[in-house]
């Protein structure tokens, strides 16, 4: 190699274009930037991909393009004013961030939530799970080039968003779950429309299963791609469908039951191979299970207030800390709040499942092709509002 370099520097002509001095950047040693603005990064993620031909040798996610300092911003707002900020974390599933934060604050301030409010929270969060999983499934379709799957899945998501719009006026940032309950009671006839949606959604899910996951090309594209070992999933703190796709039976709704979840009969779908197909299939079945929970929640829902009475306008929890977590669409979403007894949080920390899941990308993508990289990234279902915070 020394001799070559001497030759090229002596002649000097080949320097810029020659193979000898730049052999690292021939077609088999490409370094390409996927993102920060790229159709398949599902937000503003940048992945530096080292390619050998089409094979990914190394994929480094570069995060922080959507960092807004939300955790720090919370320290300058009152406890209640932080709720709208949590909307902006996981903008595909705002209800979860709302609820997780509210649960932590309620635990800290020892607020008891009315039972109807708990039911409503479960109801909207399961609807949210459907919306989020539809987004993930649609993205899997878009990543593999199945545009119609994308449209079908987004159509289902749109139905949920329309229901939410009717419920609280917002389509993405709901600010619906508040410390002490929920902001407003359900509109007239809303539960009927939700039941109707759940009925139709099951049919749509079966159709999507046939259209996309039953397709030979989609199976070839998803099966055996990005296989996540269950031990690795546990070791890296993966959760949600990413871990369950590998067969890790970990669902906070079952294993650390919160709210009224113990009263519902539902299953936790588990994958066996841990590849992109199993993760997508898990999401599909979870949407089925969410339909079951929705129907049970509506049939069991009691009458009553939706907000704790006599809550002060300005929450002022006693000094101390609290941690609570819920099962979001992406996995275990934890919130840790510290109070110094003032009207503002001393510290708010989010344990975001999307961040932990995204960390698996270099591990899963290595050795696969560039086309698989985007599929794997999509199967991890990262939401960068939550990753970067």
């Amino acid at each position, binding site marked *: 190699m020394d001799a070559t370099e001497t030759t090229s520097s002596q002649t000097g002509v080949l320097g810029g274009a020659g193979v000898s001095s730049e052999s690292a950047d021939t077609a088999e040693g490409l370094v*390409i930037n996927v993102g920060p603005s790229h159709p398949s990064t599902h937000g503003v993620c940048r992945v530096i991909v080292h390619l050998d031909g089409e094979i990914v040798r190394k994929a480094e996610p570069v995060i922080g393009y959507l960092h807004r300092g939300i955790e720090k911003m919370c320290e300058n707002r009152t406890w209640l004013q932080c709720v709208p900020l949590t909307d902006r974390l996981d903008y595909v599933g705002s209800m979860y961030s709302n609820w997780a934060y509210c649960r932590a604050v309620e635990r800290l301030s020892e607020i008891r939530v009315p039972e109807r409010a708990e039911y409503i929270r479960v109801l909207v969060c399961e609807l949210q799970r459907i919306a989020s999983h539809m987004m993930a499934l649609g993205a899997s379709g*878009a990543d593999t080039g199945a545009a119609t799957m994308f*449209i079908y899945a987004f159509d289902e998501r749109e139905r949920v968003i329309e229901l939410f719009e009717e419920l609280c006026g917002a389509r993405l940032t709901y600010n619906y779950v508040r410390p002490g309950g929920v902001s407003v009671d359900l509109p007239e006839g809303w539960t009927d429309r939700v039941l109707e949606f759940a009925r139709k959604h099951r049919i749509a899910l079966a159709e999507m299963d046939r259209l996309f996951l039953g397709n030979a090309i989609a199976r070839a*594209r998803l099966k055996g791609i990005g296989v996540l070992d269950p031990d690795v999933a546990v070791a890296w703190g993966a959760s949600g469908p990413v871990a369950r796709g590998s067969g890790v039976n970990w669902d906070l709704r079952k294993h650390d039951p919160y709210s009224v979840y113990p009263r519902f009969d539902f299953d936790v779908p588990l994958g066996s191979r841990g590849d992109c197909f199993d993760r997508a299939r898990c999401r599909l079945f979870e949407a089925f299970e969410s339909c079951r929970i929705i129907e049970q929640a509506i049939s069991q829902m009691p009458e009553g207030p939706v907000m704790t009475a006599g809550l002060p306008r300005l929450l002022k929890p006693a000094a101390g800390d609290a941690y609570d977590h819920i099962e979001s669409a992406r996995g275990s979403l934890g919130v840790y709040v510290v109070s110094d007894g003032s009207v503002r949080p001393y510290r708010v920390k989010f344990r975001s499942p999307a961040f932990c899941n995204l960390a698996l990308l270099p591990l899963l993508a290595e050795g696969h092709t560039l086309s698989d990289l*985007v599929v794997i990234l999509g199967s991890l279902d990262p939401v960068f509002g939550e990753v970067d915070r």
Partner: protein
Amino acid sequence: MSGFVGGLIWGLAAGTLIAIAALFGVWWERKVAGRIQMRIGPQTTGPAGILQTIADTLKLILKEDITPDQADVRVFRLAPLVVFVPVAMSFSVIPFAAGFAPLDTSVGMLFFLAVPALSVIGILLGGWSSRNTYATIGAIRAAAQMISYELPRALAVLSLVVLAGSIRPLDVMAAWSPWWIIATAPGFIVYFIASIAEVNRGPFDIPEAESELVAGYFADYSGIRWSIFMMAEYGGMVAASLFGAAVFLGGWNWLPGIGGILVFVALTLALVTAMVWVKWTYPRLRADQLMSFAWKIMTPAAIVQLVVVAVIAPWL
């Protein structure tokens, strides 16, 4: 000189035909895709949105024609034409009506296979001259794909040549009998799939895969140059459908006179619709899956078809 003038007229006619085919193809694709995706598709510009593509074309002509700073400017500007011209030329050997093909040559079948293959050079030039890694990867994928699918496509057409005993399209049409549809059905399927791959359409749109390569080899093109690439794609789709409808499905042989032309048009439209349908319902293959599909399934199938046809040819 009359040959030159005649050629010029046919050239202009072919250019117009491709332009119309592309305009109609885009509109038809958007309509069919809309129906598949539970939408309506274009509807406001003209009746049923038929003028939408013309409006889009005007927009594309008026858009800024961006040339990347680092690009090899002359090659960059040349590439779309190198892609388009062979596709336009391939229209000339299609037998449009009984005893009529714009360029009636004794090697027409081979001409139709060989000439569109030249557009891969334009794709390579475009991908290379953009000085864009995505474009380069797209171009290399396109070249590998098009070379691989030329083989099964040529073998599939060859079975017709064996049946007809000639590679002049009009001779093939003259010798055509409805039994050929049954005899060459696998060959037709191979031809149809390989044609989709040749024109880089879904599920074989790997060179321009928007989910990973953004737009592949024409990622850096804009405005009218971009639309020339798209016109080549739609032109290629229509040309492949016309040729397949003629030599495989009999085209105008079904009915005499003008009725035959209508059948031919209907068959072509059916093939175009099938291509659109496949594109909008199927996911995209991966590059290595595409290659193994070409070499492990398509090529052997075409060879088996050829052998079968060669054996049964005396009885047909």
